[in-house]
Each structure stands twice: as structure tokens, then as C-alpha cells.
């Protein structure tokens, strides 16, 4: 496994709460958990899941079924570890394809992107992984200033997009706004009788996209109260 990939993977796993994550030279893989699912291995291009066995029976009944355990393991791999490895691969790719900054005193940073006067750069901080920053170029572009420093990759990209004017800040919706948008789309889908076939298909497309971005949005919809209340006895 690539050195930067290994270091960054460990940093991101620990940030996500997997403090026991470790790298094994013998397997050339990162093991994110050493208790619940110790066999999961994150390798260079794949995540390996071990075949699970039926847990021991307690008083003649299984404490948990093998299929449930397998499902838990799959959820963990596809919903938690896969997004983390995707993100780390993206960071490492961006770092490898970037050139060193030309501005004064910041040569150890690599230029990931620039738009207008704003620049997004990163520095390799060894075991602490990549460190990101957004700066504003000076008038003659020889120097940079007004830095925003972070180790949060997504936050750095968002900051770059807003500072450079690629996206108006208001268009980055907060969680509550996303919930309201989702509710509005579902509300219109249920109630608007004048929707044409094409419009309805588009509406479902947006709902599906939002659900892909934030799967938890589905849970935010209130379950309607049961209408079939028992009639009072006469």
C-alpha cells in the first residue's frame, strides 16, 4: 500500500471514531477494527470481508443469526469504510497531480486548484496526514495571505468554492434546509394533481438524488397518524 494512502487512511479512520485502526505490514493492509469485525482489511484497491461463522448458541438459541451479522458487516463496509477509502483516494490523487506552490515561503505546499485570486493548497504533514488551506493571492501574485487552515478535506473544498465565488454561500444548504427541500418535493409529489408526466419524473429524479446524497433524509418524514381509528362502540 502506498505510504501516503496508508497514513491518510489511518488519519481519516481515527477521525471517524475508529481509534483502534492499525496498519499491518504482514498483510499490507489497514485493519479498521480489532474487536467487532477484526477481519475487515482495507487494501490498496479493495476492502476484504472475512467469511463469518455462526456465533455460539446461548440456551439453545442463537444470540444473533449469521445472516444478521453478515448484513452488519456489509453495511459497515459499504456505508462507512467505502466512502472513507473513496475520499482518501481522491485526496491522494489530487495531491499526486499537484505542483508545488510558486509563491514565496509556501513552497512546501502543493497547488490543488486556483480560481480568481483564491488558491486551494495542501501540505503533507507526515503521520498527521494532509493539511489543507485556502489563501488569497497578493496583488502581484508573488505571495499569499488570509489563510484558512484545516485538516478537513471537504471543508477546505467548500471554503475554496465559496471564497473563490464558484458557488454562492447561500446555495450550500444546511441539513435543516435539505430536510425542508426534501419534504417540499415529497409534498408536491403527493398533492400536486397538475404535475405532468415529465415533471413528475423529474421530481422523482431529484428526490432520488437527494436520498443518494443523504440517506437519512428518508427518516425525517413524519409518519402520518393512523386514520383508521376504532369506532366507539354504541
Amino acid at each position, binding site marked *: 500500500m502506498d505510504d501516503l494512502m496508508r497514513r491518510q487512511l489511518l488519519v481519516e479512520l481515527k477521525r471517524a471514531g475508529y481509534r483502534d485502526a492499525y496498519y499491518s505490514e504482514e498483510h499490507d493492509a489497514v485493519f479498521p477494527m480489532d474487536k467487532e469485525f477484526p477481519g475487515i482489511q482495507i487494501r490498496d484497491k479493495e476492502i476484504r470481508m472475512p467469511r463469518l461463522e455462526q456465533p455460539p448458541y446461548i440456551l439453545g438459541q442463537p444470540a444473533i443469526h449469521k445472516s444478521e451479522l453478515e448484513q452488519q458487516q456489509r453495511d459497515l463496509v459499504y456505508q462507512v469504510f467505502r466512502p472513507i477509502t473513496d475520499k482518501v483516494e481522491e485526496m491522494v490523487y489530487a495531491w499526486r497531480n499537484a505542483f508545488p506552490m510558486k509563491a514565496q515561503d509556501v513552497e512546501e505546499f502543493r497547488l490543488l486548484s486556483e480560481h*480568481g485570486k483564491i488558491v486551494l493548497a495542501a501540505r503533507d504533514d507526515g503521520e498527521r496526514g494532509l493539511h489543507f488551506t485556502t489563501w488569497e493571492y497578493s496583488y502581484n501574485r508573488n505571495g499569499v495571505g488570509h489563510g484558512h487552515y484545516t485538516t478537513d478535506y471537504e471543508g477546505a473544498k467548500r471554503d475554496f468554492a465559496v471564497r473563490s465565488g464558484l*458557488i454562492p454561500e447561500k446555495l450550500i444548504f444546511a441539513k435543516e434546509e435539505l430536510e*425542508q427541500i426534501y419534504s417540499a418535493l415529497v*409534498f*408536491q409529489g403527493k398533492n400536486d394533481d397538475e404535475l405532468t408526466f415529465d415533471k413528475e419524473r423529474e421530481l422523482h429524479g431529484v428526490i432520488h*438524488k437527494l436520498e443518494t446524497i443523504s440517506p437519512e433524509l428518508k427518516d425525517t418524514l413524519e409518519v402520518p397518524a393512523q386514520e383508521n381509528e376504532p369506532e366507539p362502540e354504541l
Partner: protein
Amino acid sequence: MLPYTFQRVMMAELRQAGYDKAKAFPGKYIQPVPELPITITDTRVSVPKDLGMMPGFSKLVRGLNTHLGIANEATWLFDNTPDSRSKVLDGQKLFVSYMNTLLTARMTENGEPQYFVQTKEYDGSLTVNKRTGSYMDAKLHFLVLSPIHKNIEAFSHKYMAQIYDALIYRGQHDTEMRPLESEILRNAISAIEQAFPGFAQERRQPEPETGLEVEP
């Protein structure tokens, strides 16, 4: 004062937003709606005082101011970005790139600005994913394609129009909304209107209700 680059960029933005009759008076100003005495220069949108009281007018002016901001940003980039020396870019201006995705622009032979969102392939060639005359549209497409901001994926121009429609529909018809929800909804509507001023004008109007007159 109306710089030439600004005039071309602003005219393209206005046309994309549906102001088909917008007219430019070179060196002086742009009139977005020839029937109304509104004028635009590179610094401001000017409105006669007595017109400011007309209903729906402030929304129109707010929309024009948003276009003005976008056009000024694009003009600055056109004026301050050198033509690329790369062979594959063929003299286009590289506005921004991230990983394999590029946002480039050029002025066509007839002086129209054109923005391209392109992907760099393994062999060094470029694939054009989007060609548009609107800078805002190009920026959003770039964000969608490059992984700079993943949550924007759903919010390209087409989807945003649908979201805007749904928000307005819920605002008009949902009688069970709580005050906090209503406030968040209004904020979201206002954010979209500021970024896409054309939506407010394009919104479908409710048909006048007929047959509800009370007979004597």
C-alpha cells in the same frame, strides 16, 4: 461606461435568463427590457425613482443585480486570465481546474462568450461535457463534475428549477407547516432566487379560478 467585454458577457447572461429583447448601446448602457427605462452599466442597475413603486419590480431589479455580479466576475476573469498556451486548449482561457476537470472560456468569432466544462482523458485529450453561454451554469456544472462539492450534485440548473417549484408549491399549499419550517423554506427560496433570478419570472402562474362567482 460600458466596457466591451462586460457588454458581451452581460448580454449573454441576460439572453440565457430569458431577456431575449435585451439591447446594448455600445459604450453607454444595456437595456434589459426595451419597454422599461431600466439601464445597466458595469457598476449599477439604474431605475427611475417612480418605477421603483411598481409591484414585483424589486424582484426584477434584484435579479438583474445578481446577473450584474455574475457578469462582472466573468469579465474580470476574461480580462485577467491569459490565453492558454496548451495545444489541446487551443487558445481558450483556463478559469479553474481541479483534478481532471477544467472550466475554460473563450470569445467566439462573433464576440459571444462561451464556457466549457471539460474532462482530461488519459491520453491528454479533452472531452467537452458542457458548452454554455451562462457563467453561473458553467460554474455549477464544473462543481458537479469535479468532486469539489459533492452535495451540489443534485443542484445543477435543471434540478434546482424543480426544487424551486416544489418549495413554492409547498409554501402555497401546506397549511400544517410550523413557523420554523416556514422560515427555513423562505430562506431556501430566497437563496435560490438570488442564484437563479430567472426562476422567479419563469414560475408558472396559478390559473384564474372561474365558475366561482356567486349568482344573485
